[in-house]
């Protein structure tokens, strides 16, 4: 035992005036908090708030990277700032273990999962190879991997996303650490899998008394999992307290703004102006089917889907990954040809694209050509239509830029000069330039922070009312879909399992899958969260 490992102090984690700087950028600014043994704390914040930087600092992972770390960090009795490399290595994974965000890239693609866990175990114990392998199987079994002996020989790419996340948690448990640090552990996962992982973390904590530091952007995930919340913004602590107090009666304006922006799955759409009489049908899909690949490897992504979209309404399409919702959206706009069935626009069968049916894409990075100014991108539909008068093109683009909340002078700027939310606005302006009657939005806000999300959704709503647009809103986030949709269709494995007016589907779901989905959505209220957890256990039994 070296000097740095003193007798365990009262707290498991004690951070005092932590400041982390990367060159000019101060990512964390005089942050202090403590975590008692067995307790759970969530660091909540939007992107750029510095929350992940704090997590990395707890294990001394900034050492040697050129980042300047000031302040005191004590984890499980180790002074992380001063401890020699040897002591730090014993801390990492031994007393405090980290669960990373993206479970695929966080595991070595070349080795079996069991071997990777065994490697970590052998670093911290003097166990033999055989004993370490046995331990790996044991922890894999513990986190609910079925047939753990056989599955421990699989490589990461042979696991599903949820299974990989379980495997990472198993690796973290291997040495029975006092502290688990989970950095966005469920962000890459579907909502039902997310619920399973959060439940697993909860159970493990109850049974093993491990402390938990959870880093997340999702207030709901925090509410589900911890006792205490620390809200971060620009590297500073905004509000810190018990989860029920911070989320129930927030004191700071930023916390209130953050909570206000979080879409609620249990609250009906705010300004639902449902049309009194059914408007005309603009887009109609009948018997749509799409297969990928041929022969034995053929995969049916969308299977016999029929939909109608009326003028001025929003149809929400919700589903988990692999449900075929994106393929469906691409067929609606004509980017993909259906294998069977047809799409009718204004009553006429349609082949290929039609400027009147536009799309807003998910990824604000890849949806704009980095080599062309945003003005040029927006002007595309105008030019393609044959508008030759350069002054009128520029004039119209400026108008559109202002309409979506940007400045006319942004015409000549390039995409990398904009934030994610701004780029999504550019994407909307480009769609509008074609004077569309229908816009299919494919996960338009899933890459954005919640506050930005709320602004973009508000903009879409305004434009819809103003222009009488029909919107198809494709998303995985049930709460977001509820906040924008008049009608909702729930997709699973290429089929629509339930469709109807939004409030009916959400408040009184009929299909068991819809029920399961809704039960998996994290609640903002910790008490409701506990009830839900119990309910999920029952659903799982059924």
């Amino acid at each position, binding site marked *: 035992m070296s000097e740095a490992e003193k007798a365990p102090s009262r707290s498991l984690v004690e951070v005092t005036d932590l400041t982390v700087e990367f060159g000019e950028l101060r990512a964390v600014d005089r942050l202090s908090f403590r975590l008692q043994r067995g307790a759970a704390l969530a660091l909540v914040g939007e992107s750029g708030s510095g929350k992940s930087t704090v997590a990395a600092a707890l294990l001394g992972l900034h*050492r*040697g990277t050129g980042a300047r770390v000031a302040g005191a960090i004590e984890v499980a009795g180790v002074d992380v700032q001063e401890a020699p490399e040897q002591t730090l290595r014993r801390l990492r994974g031994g007393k405090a273990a980290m669960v990373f965000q993206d479970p695929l890239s966080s595991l070595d693609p070349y080795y079996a999962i069991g071997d990777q866990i065994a490697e970590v175990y052998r670093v911290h114990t003097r166990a033999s190879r055989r004993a370490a392998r046995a331990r790996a199987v044991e922890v894999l079994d513990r986190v609910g991997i079925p047939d753990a002996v056989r599955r421990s020989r699989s490589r990461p790419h042979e696991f599903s996303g949820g299974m990989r996340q379980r495997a990472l948690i198993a690796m973290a448990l291997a040495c029975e650490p006092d502290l688990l640090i989970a950095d966005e552990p469920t962000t890459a996962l579907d909502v039902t899998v997310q619920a399973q992982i959060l439940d697993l973390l909860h159970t493990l904590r109850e049974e093993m008394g491990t402390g938990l530091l959870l880093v997340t952007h999702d207030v709901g995930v925090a509410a589900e999992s911890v006792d205490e919340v620390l809200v971060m913004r620009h590297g500073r602590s905004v509000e810190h307290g018990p989860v029920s107090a911070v989320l129930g009666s927030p004191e700071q304006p930023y916390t209130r703004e953050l909570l206000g922006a979080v879409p609620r799955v249990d609250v009906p759409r705010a300004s639902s102006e449902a049309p009194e009489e059914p408007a005309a049908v603009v887009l109609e899909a009948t018997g749509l089917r799409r297969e990928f690949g041929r022969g034995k490897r053929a995969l049916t992504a969308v299977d016999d889907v029929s939909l109608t979209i009326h003028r001025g309404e929003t149809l929400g399409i919700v589903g988990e990954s692999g449900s075929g919702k994106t393929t469906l959206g691409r067929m609606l706009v004509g980017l993909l040809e259906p294998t069977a069935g047809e799409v009718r626009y204004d009553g006429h069968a349609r082949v290929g694209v039609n400027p009147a049916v536009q799309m807003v*894409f998910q990824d604000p990075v890849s949806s704009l050509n*980095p080599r*062309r100014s945003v003005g040029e991108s927006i002007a*595309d539909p105008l030019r393609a239509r044959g508008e030759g008068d350069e002054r009128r093109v520029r004039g119209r683009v400026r108008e559109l830029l202002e309409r979506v909340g940007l400045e006319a002078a942004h015409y000549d700027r390039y995409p990398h000069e904009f934030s994610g939310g701004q780029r999504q606005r550019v994407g909307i302006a480009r769609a509008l330039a074609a004077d569309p009657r229908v816009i299919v939005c494919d996960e338009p806000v899933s890459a954005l922070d919640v506050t930005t999300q709320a602004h973009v959704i508000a903009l879409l709503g305004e434009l819809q009312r103003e222009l009488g647009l029909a919107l198809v809103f494709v998303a995985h986030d049930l709460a977001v879909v509820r906040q924008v949709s008049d009608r909702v269709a729930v997709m699973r494995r290429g089929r629509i399992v339930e469709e109807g007016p939004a409030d009916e589907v959400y408040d009184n779901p009929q299909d068991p899958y819809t029920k399961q989905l809704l039960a998996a959505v994290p609640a903002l209220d910790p008490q409701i969260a506990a009830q839900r957890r119990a309910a999920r256990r029952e659903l799982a039994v059924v």
Partner: protein
Amino acid sequence: MSAPGASGARQLWRRLRTQRSALVAAVVVALLVLVALGAPLLTAIEGQDPTTYHPSLVDSARGGVPIGSFGGVSAEHWLGVEPQTGRDLFARLVHGARVSLGVALAATVVQLVLGVVIGVAAGLGNRWVDLVLTRIADIFVAMPLMVVALALLAIVPTSFPRPVLVALVVGLVSGWGTLAKMVRAQTLTLKELDYVAAARLSGWGTVRIARRELLPGLATPVITFAAILVPTNITVEAALSFLGVGVKPPTPSWGQMLTSADVWYQAAPQYLLLPAGALFVTVLALTVLGDGVRTALDPRAASRLSVGTGRKQEAKGEVS
């Protein structure tokens, strides 16, 4: 994020300027190009030409060793004369630069055109076009360059202008297969990007989309690849000429000069050292410049490929 926009070339230069080694290499390459272009002028200043024999300057009794110290260095012959023939070495060296660089660049152009055209066609074409073109590219990846080039150069009639022939053979046989496969992969990736889909929704046709949205995205990897091709082609030309099937006398070439250099290394060491040194410096400068261009175009990926310079931060970042 690499986003060479309209000012791509200027941006490239700006990033290149920050790397000292690349800058030095660029200067060396520029000098070499100047020498190659101004070879007739330089030899005129010296008052010599690369093909005239000077039998009086070599000692035929001793097998043709140049007369005088250091291989016949004199005010008339700055670097001495060639053993046996007495041709002026300086003139042959600078005219050799002309051949080396010219052949290498011409071959590179052939490789780039073939690689990009076939790669893009495979990436955009239907399943069968793709299959056939990819297979053809595969065959040329497997084509053993030296052997095939040797054979081809042997059967084409000697009346065909030799440097042009060498450039054509090197360009047609090597390099482009790999490039085409890379361009195809990149085209497939770009094709799936949302901004290409958005352009389609705007109502543009395939040709315009290929030109406006796809080709600019190919610029970075293609330039990077070209930066590797040029020095490789220089080496290949030198090798072929060394074997006696490349550029034929009396046209001078560095590789050709080395063919008989080992016999003379004691009497006239510069006959070996000069062409060898010229080859080394040229290939080295082009390689370093190529690394620099790659770093400038894609700082992230290149930091791992670059050699020894300009990656201090990254190196430190890994030690923990």
